């Protein structure tokens, strides 16, 4: 129909903007920015989340309580409000203005780390206690047992959940729109402001683009899940396989 045709025209006329934003006449934007934000966000959040998970499981209150508090706050406050906080606090802390992209990245790293830490923690706790016992009996220290025995297994099992969190991160990058981060949703907004007469087509294209990206990622996740399940049944016990392989994304946006 006519709508389909106008959608093609919009994509044809604006594909560069959607792809890379206003680069090189401005910062990198569009879908490239979305992908870079998501990948960097998860990549930086991951090591942080492992540290947080270990802290949450440690026997020292001084480590446990702050981390548990951070996780609760992150789970209880909307991401949008957290973005506003960081947008305000970060320049004050550093003493100079911070571009929106960086603000968004910092927010995402912190936010994802909190959620990931819960996933990692669940993964560690799902391993049978016998693993820790065996490692300690062989003389490993607590951290040594973690590093060589527990974490490798836990993290492997948690790959589907971590990937699932990655999909959530992609969806969460859209919130950068509020502070004018030049990612895909922002680009679509720009196009709509220019065209004004075809909002449905523009936003439908936006929805479909995200759908394709996230759906493909979800497909990858199921393939990975199956591979892991096949490996799992040989070595690990019912306790580990009782965990849902992909919990509905913890942050749920």
């Amino acid at each position: 129909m006519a709508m389909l045709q106008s959608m093609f025209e919009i994509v044809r006329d604006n594909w560069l903007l959607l792809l890379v934003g206003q680069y090189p006449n401005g910062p990198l934007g569009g879908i490239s920015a979305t992908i870079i934000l998501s990948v960097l966000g998860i990549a930086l959040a991951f090591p942080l989340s492992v540290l947080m998970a270990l802290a949450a499981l440690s026997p020292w209150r001084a480590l446990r309580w702050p981390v548990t508090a951070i996780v609760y706050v992150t789970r209880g406050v909307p991401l949008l409000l957290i973005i506003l906080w960081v947008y305000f606090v970060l320049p004050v802390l550093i003493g100079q203005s911070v571009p929106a992209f960086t603000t968004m990245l910092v927010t995402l790293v912190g936010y994802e780390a909190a959620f990931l830490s819960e996933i990692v923690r669940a993964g560690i706790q799902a391993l049978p206690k016998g693993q820790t016992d065996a490692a300690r009996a062989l003389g490993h220290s607590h951290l040594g047992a973690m590093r060589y025995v527990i974490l490798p297994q836990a993290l492997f099992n948690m790959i589907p959940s971590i990937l699932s969190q990655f999909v959530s991160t992609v969806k969460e990058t859209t919130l950068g729109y509020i502070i004018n981060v030049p990612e895909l949703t922002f680009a679509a907004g720009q196009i709509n402001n220019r065209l004004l007469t075809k909002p449905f087509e523009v936003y439908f294209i936006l929805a479909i683009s995200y759908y394709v990206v996230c759906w493909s990622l979800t497909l990858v996740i199921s393939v990975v899940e199956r591979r892991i399940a096949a490996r799992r049944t040989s070595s690990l016990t019912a306790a580990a396989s009782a965990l849902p392989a992909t919990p509905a994304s913890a942050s749920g946006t």
Partner: protein
Amino acid sequence: MKGFDLMAVLLNPEFSRMLVHGVKMTFIIFIGSWLLAMSLGMVLVAVRMLPSRIADGLVAIYVSYHRNVPTLVQLMLWYFGISSLLPDSMQMWLSDHNGESVFAIIALGLCQAAYFSEDQRSGLRGVPAGQWEAARALGHSYLGAMAYILLPQAIRNAMPALVNHTVSLFKNSSLAMAIGVAELTHAVKEVENQSFRPFETYLIATLVYLVCSLLLMWLGHTLEQRSRMAGAA
């Protein structure tokens, strides 16, 4: 930066009015979309159980769309996109009658219904097949077996996930600010603009959200404990 002064924000009648209104709108959006999501979720599960593969496929597409498209984009598609497709008279009526809130409730409700229906579905699948057989062997009809034996167990199974998603929905109400709904986060930005006290304003909003989320989680936890089948794993 001015010194920390919470009262300057709280006691100012204009600001507190805006914040209170914001909290009110947040709850309207939350409760409206929750009711829509819960009921639609149950309908979706029921439809999925029909012997038709088309029905199953349609619901699967519905769920897939709402889980893979970011919620903010869904909101925008509804408010900017679909509203433009409506006849002019309807558009005018909507803009006079809090159209943003209506679209926000619809968008958030439909999105969350996908999650709720999946939770309810897993809950049902978690009931062992033997239960169904025992119910039928005793002579219960399909509806009777569902009502007295399967659904009570399915709901208990699904509760943790449903509670989690309810809290998500509550937090997602903040997204409605992007389409102009004057809920709490929107109010916070307005107050901050006018009072030049971002720290105090954000703190108030953070506390409100935090307390409400924790309350919801606690409520859910209590419900789970109460309804847990005594001694069950």
